[in-house]
């Protein structure tokens, strides 16, 4: 255990945290800006009896994740936007077989090959599933290198608890930036996985991990049961950080790197006498609806600050039931809004006064 602080890139922090969470199986394929995760695993896994395997493609890697998860072990893969699109079939199969896994997306600009600079434009893909069929992933959005580590551990715990995929939805900047991290974590013992295909030893019935159901009635029942579990996740696991929201007239909704920029803008607004605040969703699915519902009771306007053309804004509108105006402040294509751009949006919203 590293109790003292170390200076790490966000991607490295994810890799180290995964190892500390007991993950001994990593499968991946290189892509900027997340390759440090694979590089770290390649260096460290062989030294601790773990498996690092550079697969022949992203699709192969996600299916290796399916295999290890079926055997009841903690397992992960990581990629960046175009690579996650390739993995989407596998993500659907993991959901259909109720297998826990951790998947990292250090987002880059899109669509298509796009660019290598940071983005948040895979929000829909992450929170709505990405692959086919009715399913969700638990989506966690770190905004610092320390949180990259914390949410990786949390991601494994939630995945095992609910038999779901946890996705760390990061971006190129948090993946690449260096900050001090403390690994002073209290790692909980892993939960039993009586469903895992570990061999019957002639002492129990066969466990079968599968997503194919021959009878429609049976497939319907499985879907209903799965959504009961999702409801439990929505009730228990939604998480957001609130900053100066209590008396705020103008509230920023922002996650990840956009939240860091927005916090500076909120401070600037407060220094100039504008009651501004920030809601930073830490879980994007489940979306922290209650916090937004409460904010809609007193805010004049909510500004969604995103590195996308406006994706989370839809969840903000749904959560607030359109009771207050919700506007968008964004940069895309690998660009990041400046604190001043966000501050100007706050000033403009404040002058409008909720009209």
């Amino acid at each position: 255990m590293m109790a003292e602080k170390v200076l790490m890139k966000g991607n490295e922090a994810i890799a180290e945290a995964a190892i500390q969470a007991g993950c001994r199986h990593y499968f991946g394929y290189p892509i900027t800006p997340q390759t440090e995760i694979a590089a770290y695993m390649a260096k460290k896994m062989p030294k601790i009896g773990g498996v690092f395997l550079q697969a022949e493609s992203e699709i192969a890697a996600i299916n290796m994740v399916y295999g290890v998860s079926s055997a009841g072990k903690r397992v992960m893969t990581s990629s960046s936007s175009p690579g996650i699109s390739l993995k989407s079939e596998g993500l659907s199969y993991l959901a259909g077989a109720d297998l826990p896994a951790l998947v990292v997306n250090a987002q880059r600009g899109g669509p298509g090959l796009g660019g290598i600079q940071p983005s948040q434009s895979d929000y829909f893909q992450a929170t709505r599933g990405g692959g086919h069929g009715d399913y969700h992933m638990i989506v966690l959005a770190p905004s610092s290198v320390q949180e990259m580590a914390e949410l990786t551990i949390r991601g494994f715990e939630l995945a095992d608890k609910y038999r779901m995929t946890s996705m760390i939805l990061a971006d190129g900047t948090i993946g690449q930036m260096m900050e001090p991290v403390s690994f002073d974590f209290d790692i909980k013992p892993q939960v039993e996985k009586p469903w895992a295909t570990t061999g019957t030893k002639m002492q129990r019935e066969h466990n079968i991990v599968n997503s194919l159901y021959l009878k429609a009635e049976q497939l319907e029942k499985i879907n209903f049961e799965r959504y009961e579990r999702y409801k439990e996740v929505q009730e228990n696991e939604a998480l957001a950080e609130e900053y100066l929201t209590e008396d705020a007239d103008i509230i920023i909704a922002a996650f990840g790197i956009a939240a860091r920029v927005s916090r500076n803008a909120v401070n600037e607004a407060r220094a100039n006498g504008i009651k501004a605040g920030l809601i930073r969703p830490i879980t994007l699915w489940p979306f922290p609806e209650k916090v937004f519902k409460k904010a809609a009771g007193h805010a004049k306007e909510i500004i969604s600050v995103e590195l996308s053309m406006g994706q989370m804004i839809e969840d903000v509108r749904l959560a607030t039931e359109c009771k207050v105006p919700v506007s968008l402040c964004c940069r895309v294509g690998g660009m990041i809004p400046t604190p001043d751009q966000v501050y100007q949006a706050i000033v403009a919203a404040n002058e409008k006064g909720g009209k």
Partner: protein
Amino acid sequence: MNYKRITLLGGHYGSGKTNIAVNMAHELKRQHSYTAVADLDIVNPYFRTLDSRDELEAEGIRMIVSQYANTNLDAPALPQDMYAIVHDKAMYSIVDVGGDDRGALALGRLSGMIAEEDNYDFFMVINKYRPLTPDPQSVMEVLEEIEEAGRLKFTGIINNSNLGAETTPEDVLNSMAFAEEVSRLSGLPLVLTSCEEKLYPLLEGKIENMFPMKLQKRPVE
């Protein structure tokens, strides 16, 4: 510092080579009017010397960088004018070699000519607070891998141990035993110990050969 004609910086990935390169370039420019910064990093497309282009060029420091650095073309491209480092004998340069042995691979193309001219320093930049080089033995492994890949022997050690913006004077002081042990194991002199310039007044006199630095701007605080 007294600079040789070519000053090369190698080290573990993320040890702080680029920050030191930019700061050294400013110092070198005060000693020699024809000064350049060369970026031979073929690994890392983020956070490069190019981020400081405006301030360097404003001082008349030549930039030798791949035309694709800081663009979306994620290719391991080298600067087309990299041979100026060895051929343009009037030019003094700071060369930012990429991280680890992979980053140093491109240096191998120039190392024969650099060694033959024999007017260079090749410094190994170390940071005790990086996760994969926490002890002198792990640094020695990286050091030998870089020398092999770059086909050039190091001539000194630069201790750049830091925890980013949170670095305290104690963090720097606590790294000295580590740096001295690397120096002993490698037989190379500890040439400089760097720190952010705001820490310099607190450390002056306590550590020999300090190198106060301005840090490159980050995209987000």
